[in-house]
């Protein structure tokens, strides 16, 4: 039971702060600090095609 509730906690990224900066080569960028509610899982090489509404 504990395992399943842990698994269902979805990864969420949240903007902590944001600022617009101009690089030395003149490009305007928006830099943000992002916080996550849990560690980001590692990935393996491959792809998946998500389509339309997701859970």
């Amino acid at each position: 039971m504990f395992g399943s509730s842990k698994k269902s906690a979805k990864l969420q990224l949240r903007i902590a702060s944001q600022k617009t900066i101009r690089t030395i080569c003149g490009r305007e960028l928006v830099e943000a600090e992002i916080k996550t509610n849990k560690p980001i899982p590692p990935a393996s090489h491959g792809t998946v095609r998500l389509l339309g509404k997701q859970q």
Partner: protein
Amino acid sequence: MKKFVQAVFRTVPGQIIFWVIVSIMLPAILEELFALNDMLSIPLKHLAEWKADSTLEGRLKFILLFIVYASPIAVIAGFLASRRKSGETAVPPYRSRNNYERLIADVKETVNSREATNQLKAEKINLLFDALIEDVCHLFQVQRSGVRAVLVINNRGRHKLTSWRWGRACTPDQDRMDYKAIDKFLETELTYPTWEQVKSHFDHTDSDTLLFIRNSGKLGLGCLIAIENSIDLEKHMQEWEHIVSPFTMLGHMDKLVRFVVNYT
């Protein structure tokens, strides 16, 4: 029989005799083919002379005549359709004009160099990501103004990331949707997932197609490409795989990730 075939086809004199006979006989046979005209006409002659008096016979005759007339039309139509289909599939696959291995090697060399200025390093990185966006535009036939790129860099520990966005302008709401999309992509635990028909998930998003690229293993550097329109991704999936392949290696270059964060 086997020895005879071997003697004819596996020896030079045998092959010469065979081709001499063929070259004499074949024109002669073709010349005499008109003799078959009468024989070939027999079924058609019978069909033409058939007095189909009853309804059943009339229908049967119509079916036979229909087969006679429709067969060559079907053959010609089939031939033209196969030609058209092969013409469509013969479109050459999109190949990037950018040599990514070279661009990445340049970035790596410049970032690692103590003599290179920050400006030079920044230009090399910009060149790399500009090339990627250019390829996205060419491959999927979209306008550059309809594409936004968001880099996410894992440099602040387990629960913190740094993100950069450039390209198509967006509102704070769109920003949040981009990060929610990145959540989804990171949860796939794959290096180049894609998402189509995004507008049916996020009602107010300005992007209908999202592409994501990240390194394998622990996240070093990921890149979200948000495209305004829907695109035919299935048709170009192999070409896209070819383009993203070197980008999935970028996150493994620690110095590059550090520099991308610090060069501003």
